[in-house]
């Protein structure tokens, strides 16, 4: 299973925005590469990544072969109170990944 690196910069008042930085180890195989015998290497990219906060979807990314290998994404989610942030992703081969982090609201 893939390994991810997840960093969050928790929200500060007054706007309750938490910055999420995620880097996922994944080749993001484009389907355009060829192997030694001239066969196309099967496309396999992480096509969806979602973020849920306290069970509610707060962000969704649909990704394609235009995203680099070992995809990196930085975005913001609104976290009005402390709670659990869950990142989930899935690739074309059906592999799933998940990372959870507890957001503690700084006061």
């Amino acid at each position: 299973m893939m390994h991810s690196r997840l960093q969050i910069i928790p929200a500060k008042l007054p706007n309750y925005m938490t910055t999420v930085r995620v880097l996922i180890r994944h080749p993001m195989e484009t389907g355009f590469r060829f192997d030694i015998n001239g066969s196309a290497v099967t496309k396999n990219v992480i096509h969806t990544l979602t973020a849920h906060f306290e069970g509610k979807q707060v962000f969704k990314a649909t990704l394609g072969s235009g995203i680099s290998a070992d995809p990196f994404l930085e975005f913001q989610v609104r976290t009005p109170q402390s709670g659990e942030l869950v990142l989930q992703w899935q690739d074309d081969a059906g592999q799933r990944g998940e990372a959870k982090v507890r957001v503690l609201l700084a006061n």
Partner: protein
Amino acid sequence: MNLRRRLLWALGLGWGATPALFAQHVPQEQLLQPYVGVNAVQKGRVKLEIARLADNGFNVPLKVSVASPMTAQDHVRRLLLLSDRNPRPLIAAFEFGPSADQVLISTRVRLGGSQTVYALAQTSDSMWWLDTAEVEVTESACLDQT
């Protein structure tokens, strides 16, 4: 059928015709049409930051933000990153709920040759906003035909 294929088709170059030696640039109207339909697209609100030169196009840092109050009445619904020259034009699409407070995305993209990158946002009033950036991908001089 991807968009480029569709274009070739429209130009009567679909089946049987030899493929272009290199991927061609897709004109803005045709690139955006599948997403915006007949709706107008305005410059503004979106800010796309990307270096003017990219070493090989495999790993190009990109930053995009959308100015929006992000209230229940006025927020960014979707943000699309599009390439006018990649084999697949849609690089990524992002969806935000009204609970988001600001839109600021950083990522790294693959660019298949020198091209224009488009950041296209739709706000909750269904309006489309656009920013573009030209990137020179410095590939092998003997190969690239741009």
